[in-house]
């Protein structure tokens, strides 16, 4: 029990450290790799919070595919960010973020403590889904049975979103990529 809590606390703190490093890196490649690491640590975090399905999706999709997408985009983009001077805008942003996070942390005292069986989130649907998965659907993995059966329309909507995004990306890049490579050749 205590061990679990300590692992949890260590992993979230690791995520925080990585996120702080991401703010100030100017080399784009290190930003991308740090983001991948961040996703991977998040996946570990999900394992320790008992969400195994989410963990392997995050590890393969969040840490894998999106890192590949970033690297692919990087081949068309500048490799380093321009240096920014610290100005009034940054101070406004820091103030906004500090105030909002202060308010959220203040509000967190009203949230139920992590991991209590009597938390409101566990009182209604979850038990029905677990029993239904055992008695009616017959799949041992409850997440799968909810995903494909109880909330099947959700998954259908997700497929539509991915399809739309895929079409949009194709439309955006259709002539873009070939022209970019032409321009690059002319520059050389």
């Amino acid at each position, binding site marked *: 029990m205590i061990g679990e809590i300590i692992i949890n606390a260590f992993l979230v703190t690791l995520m925080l450290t990585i996120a702080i490093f991401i703010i100030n890196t100017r080399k784009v490649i290190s930003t991308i790799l740090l983001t991948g690491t961040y996703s991977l640590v998040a996946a570990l975090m999900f394992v320790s919070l*008992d969400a195994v399905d989410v963990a392997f999706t995050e590890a393969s999709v969040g840490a894998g595919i999106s890192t590949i997408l970033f690297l692919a985009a990087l081949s068309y983009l500048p490799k380093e960010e321009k240096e920014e001077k610290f100005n009034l805008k940054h101070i406004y942003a820091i103030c906004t*973020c500090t105030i909002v996070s202060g308010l*959220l942390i203040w509000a967190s005292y009203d949230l139920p403590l992590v991991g209590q069986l009597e938390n409101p989130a566990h009182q209604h649907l979850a038990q029905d889904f677990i029993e239904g998965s055992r008695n009616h659907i017959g799949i*041992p993995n409850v997440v799968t049975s909810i995903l494909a059966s109880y909330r099947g329309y959700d998954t259908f909507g997700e497929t539509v979103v991915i399809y739309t995004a895929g079409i949009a990306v194709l439309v955006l890049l259709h002539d*873009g990529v070939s022209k970019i490579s032409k321009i690059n050749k002319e520059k050389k």
Partner: protein
Amino acid sequence: MIDQIFGVWNYWIVFILMMIGLYIVISKKSLLKKIVGLAIFQTSVFLLYITFGKIAGGTAPILTDNVNEIYSNPLPHVLILTAIVVGVATTALGLALTVRINKAYGTINEDEISASDLVEYHEKYLEDKN
């Protein structure tokens, strides 16, 4: 006492991570960095949901023969599975837009993009005047 502190520790870190993501989105000029900021924000929200689903002493929601087993709440897991995949779709779309903007303007720096827009408007204005 230690339970009390660690009972809200996850929430605190999640909120701070959210705000780091928001800060990157607001303050960084590079469009690519903004997308990274969105990704950080997103992952922290996933973490918040999964934290809600955790039950101490429970196991992953895969049914065993033991009838008295306590399972963590599977519903947030399903919602977040959907959200992760949609998140990658939006990241891909954002990256495609960034590549396209870089092609049109030759830069992905916000200030330079609006500056070159201004120059264009000014030239058009002078043309109309003459």
